[in-house]
């Protein structure tokens, strides 16, 4: 299968680009759970009280049966119908009562765990957005999605069904143990002795189950990743008739998950059957030992018969608990994947409150000092030795060939990544010391891919400023000279944009993204090929409009269209990760350097 043939160079932890897990100790789980999903523990005390009452209900009928037979039906003076009536009615009342408490236990557990898991989900989700863009990046978001959906669901399945069984089983075990000692301490010790090896071997028995379930969760993430490709990449797959390749990939992932799940199931069944076997063994041993003890006069017939009966009460919860402990492994595997996500270190962390500095008001000056950057997991330096000062309020264009490091420069300036060496200073403040929330209010980047949310044009623009009205959105478009475009939209601001904005063209998505950024009213605007898909006439109009809009702000435009560069105050030319030229376009065009060459090529194509 594909998993077996994964290239040796591939990272071991293959899902969702999250670093490999540091498996937490089970003891730590409860502490983490209290921290990450405190709601689960809410009202747990009362739930446990109800659970104890419910446990009573578990043994009341068997005891009633035994009592009825012994003291009612086989009463010395013949059948004692009155006594039987009292016993059965009393037992029925207890059964009905514990039916109520059992419902309460279930409901309270559902309520507490769902509340806890909702906040766990949200925490994990929030953490994804704290992670660096690089960690989030990639085409297969399916496996990331699986961590906030199906992995969490696994935990809830256990907490809601398994936990009840576990709690009730433990209660029943305690009761049954007490009863066993009441009837015969020797036999009780014998029963316990049989289960001691199981208890001691539990860890070892459970280890394959644990491992198998961890793999199952991993495979599930990969499965969703593969399915996600068929959905998100549908256009490309269709355009190249590549569906056979895609279903082969899905089939491989589905099959890997199925195989792993069956492996886990076999391991679970094996562990469970150990419990069943020991239960049978206990029964056999008690019959033998009890009879021999009885012959020696150490136990009466009545007590032995009662004891045989109680063993049933003891064995059943042991089996149920084995079962639940297996389910627990599945839940723990899901839990680990969620926690692993939450524990993924934030590569671009927020400064500590004592270290945090707000950006000074007004347009932002950008200063790069000896900056170098290498993408994690690669060896090639994308940028090296970059020293650059971009004065506050100036308009800068960054040009260079594909792969020269332009986009990385934009990412450094907007602190989507931190430099490996050197510093990025915004208005004299190290970008690492500015809290993310305030940084992105003042420093806004418009990426090339104009991603829109599945709502309307107006809603997408208003995202730029939370309190913005429709009028603000209209004004933002009009500032950018886009009123005519808005007018020709079928429903104006109410026009639905579709998933990822696909009902609009790529150029239109970029227009919305620009209006959104303008509405955010930033002091530093970074445009990373933000108008690459817009038609030339619109782009020229936009450039004109931007000259007004950008006055009093600093702007950095990454551009492959030199029309942008020519409108800038200063042009920065990047080549192979180094800044090779800086100056006004008019000067550089005739300087005979790299910019002259780019300019000549551009002029040949456009003028």
């Amino acid at each position: 299968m594909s998993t077996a043939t994964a290239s040796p160079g591939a990272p071991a932890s293959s899902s969702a680009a999250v670093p490999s897990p540091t498996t937490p100790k089970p003891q730590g789980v409860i502490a983490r759970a209290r921290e990450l999903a405190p709601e689960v523990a809410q009202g747990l005390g009362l739930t446990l009280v109800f659970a104890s009452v419910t446990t009573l209900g578990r043994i009341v009928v068997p005891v009633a049966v035994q009592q009825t037979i012994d003291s009612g039906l086989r009463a010395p003076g013949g059948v004692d119908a009155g006594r039987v009536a009292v016993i059965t009615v009393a037992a029925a009342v207890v059964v009905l009562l514990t039916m109520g408490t059992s419902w309460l236990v279930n409901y309270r557990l559902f309520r507490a765990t769902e509340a806890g898991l909702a906040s766990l989900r949200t925490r994990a989700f929030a953490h994804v957005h704290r992670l660096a863009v690089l960690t989030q990046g990639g085409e297969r978001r399916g496996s990331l999605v699986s961590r906030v959906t199906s992995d969490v669901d696994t935990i809830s399945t256990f907490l809601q069904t398994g936990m009840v069984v576990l709690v009730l089983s433990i209660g029943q075990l305690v009761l049954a143990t007490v009863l066993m000692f009441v009837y015969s301490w020797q036999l009780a010790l014998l029963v316990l002795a049989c289960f001691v090896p199981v208890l001691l071997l539990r860890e070892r028995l459970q280890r394959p189950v644990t491992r198998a379930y961890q793999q199952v969760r991993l495979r599930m993430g990969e499965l969703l990743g593969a399915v996600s490709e068929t959905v998100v990449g549908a256009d490309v797959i269709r355009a190249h008739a590549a569906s056979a390749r895609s279903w082969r990939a899905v089939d491989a992932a589905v099959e890997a998950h199925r195989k792993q799940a069956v492996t886990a199931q076999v391991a679970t069944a094996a562990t469970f059957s150990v419990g069943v076997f020991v239960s049978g063994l206990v029964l056999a041993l008690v019959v033998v030992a009890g009879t021999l003890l009885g012959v020696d006069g150490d136990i009466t017939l009545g007590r032995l018969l009662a004891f045989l009966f109680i063993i049933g009460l003891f064995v059943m919860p042991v089996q149920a608990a084995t079962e639940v402990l297996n389910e627990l492994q599945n839940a723990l595997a899901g839990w680990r994947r969620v926690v692993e996500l939450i524990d993924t270190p934030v590569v671009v962390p927020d400064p500590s409150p004592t270290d945090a500095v707000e950006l000074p008001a007004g347009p932002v000056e950008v200063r790069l000092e000896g900056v170098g950057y290498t993408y994690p997991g690669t060896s090639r330096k994308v940028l090296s030795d970059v020293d650059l000062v971009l004065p506050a309020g100036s308009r800068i264009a960054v040009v260079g060939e594909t792969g020269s490091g332009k986009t990385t420069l934009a990412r450094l300036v907007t602190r989507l990544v931190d430099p490996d060496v050197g510093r990025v200073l915004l208005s004299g403040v190290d970008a690492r010391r500015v809290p993310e929330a305030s940084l992105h209010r003042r420093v806004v980047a418009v990426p090339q891919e104009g991603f829109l949310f599945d709502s309307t044009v107006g809603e997408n623009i208003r995202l730029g400023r939370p309190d913005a009205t429709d009028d603000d959105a209209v004004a933002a478009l009009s500032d950018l000279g886009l009123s005519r475009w808005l007018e020709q939209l079928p429903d104006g601001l109410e026009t639905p944009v579709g998933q990822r904005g696909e009902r609009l063209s790529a150029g239109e998505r970029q227009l919305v993204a620009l209006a959104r950024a303008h509405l955010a009213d930033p002091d530093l605007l970074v445009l990373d090929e933000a108008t690459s898909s817009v038609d030339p006439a619109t782009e020229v109009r936009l450039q004109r409009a931007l000259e007004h809009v950008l006055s009093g702000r600093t702007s950095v435009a990454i551009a492959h269209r030199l029309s942008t560069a020519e409108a800038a105050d200063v042009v920065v030319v990047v080549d192979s990760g180094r800044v090779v030229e800086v100056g006004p376009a008019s000067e550089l065009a005739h300087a005979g350097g790299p910019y002259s060459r780019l300019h000549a090529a551009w002029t040949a194509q456009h003028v």
Partner: protein
Amino acid sequence: MSSSGTFLPGLKILARGAREEPRLFAGAVLGSVVYGVGTAGSGWLVGRITEDVVVPALTSGSQRTVTTGDVWLAGAALLAVALVTVGGVLLRRIFAGAAMYGLQARYRRALARRYLDLPLSWHHSHPAGRLLATAASDVEATWQAMAILPFALGVVVLIGVAGPAMVAADPVLGGIGLVVVPALVVANAAYSRVMSPKVRRVQRLRGEVSAVAHESFEGALVVKTLGLADGEVARFSEHAARLRDANIAAGRTRGAFDPVIEALPQLGTLLVLAVGAARAASGSADVGDIVQVAYMLSLLAFPVRAIGWTLAELPRTVAGDARLQAVLRESATTPWGTLRADRTASPAAPSARGVEYHHPVPVPDPTDEDDDDDARRRAAAAAPALGRSRAARPVLSGVHLDLTAGTTTALVGGTGSGKSTLAGLLVRLVDPTSGQVLLDGVDVRELAEGELAGVAALVPQATFVFDDTVRGNVALGLEVTDDDVWAALRLAQADGFVASLPDGLDTRVGERGTTLSGGQRQRLALARALVRRPRLLVLDDATSALDPAVERAVLDGLGASFDGGQGTTVLVVASRPATIALADEVVHLERGRVVDRGTAEELLQRDEGYRELVSAYARAARQRAAESMSSENMSSKSMTGEGSRA
């Protein structure tokens, strides 16, 4: 779908599952029967041993003498029965699990094939995250019951054996005991009526949570750069809270059902005792028979709950399956034809006849019919808006276009004029709302699956890189040699950067692999199209992320290859004069209509809108030059560039 009983529909779905995995299912049922027989046998054996061994041994003056060997023999017999039971448990669990996972795998494969087969218009109207949730949690919900069903069936067999025995012991008491089973079914009917809408809601909300997460992670860059994280977390948390409330509501019902199914056999046992005592007192029943019925009933009490558990899962089975079938039975299949495309090396002649295109209407969730007014409200709000926009303006209308085989045509138009849609129609990414798209005179809808893609290739604006090697990303399942791949990469000017990757063609790109720049991704997509040696090549602004110099080289390379090679009809969505200069003909699209076509010179002369588009940069440059002349003596701001090495 009616919101009432799930008993029969649920069993039907499970029966289908059993038919689809007959061997595993049969094995599981067999294991369950063995387990049931073992359990019953163990009970019977304990009774026999008590009577024949324990009682005589411990009763002084017993007529029967019991040796130590007899005692050990009894123990050995019990152990043997336990081993049989263990075998049954293993068989049942392993086979039932394998059946469940086998069904999950089967349906996931079927779903993925449907996803790949359904038209793109369908995809554009179904949120990706929801489709993911269907493949994950809906499949799980549907087949969860399969893990317990064999157990329940084994219990049915057990009842089939124990029931007559109970009835034989005492018809009245046995009858009372057996009433437990129909009582479970009746309780389940009430339960499923309350539970079904709740479960449907839960599954739908799971889909929504997944959709929100998927969308939000896809837009992560925008979320980050605009500082929208808090808003996104609030949005997600709202959906998570709705799912939580729905789960709690379902839990309230589910939590009541379990105690009921647990209590029913218990109450039955008590009733047997009470009635039995009365009957014994009146002399119409034998004490031994009562004990036997009561004992058997208590023996059944635990396994009977397996029936209850299976019944409790049925609403999820029905709800999950409804969502699966919504995809699997979706009638909007891409209607492939039967004709074969011309696979000769001659260039293709595509054309459009009176083509009109509207965006598809978003499709509400398949189980939206229940009580969630929010989803309905949104769907209702979306519908009229879309209705209006349909009436207002289609994306394309009345488009007639004939591309001459072997020529290069530039498609020029303003932002949002419909260029990409037209490009997509030619390679049948979407079908026109009305009108026809033809290739060599044949309606592309008449062509069999894979035929059109075999001769026509599109390089879209936004590139999608699969989690695969460079080779896999270029070949995409096509049988090609490494030489072919390198040739395509060379033509797309991608050979240089691929050669510098750590493992060359074997380097994994995409999620786990090397980060590629926008230009590199675009060139990879270009190579993907070129390796297919298409007779029709559609470039949808496919060189937009390339620098002018690189773009020039790519286009020159294309020209050289296609002139000297097999010859290809090219449609290129373009705006740069240099790109347009490579074209034999220019088509000007405005607001979804073809407004002009001809040579570049002709259009430049007579089409004002076209002139405005293509000469925008030149005019801007002239204007700027004039401005800078007039402000010559104004000193520009001094800039410092310490890193300048020029």
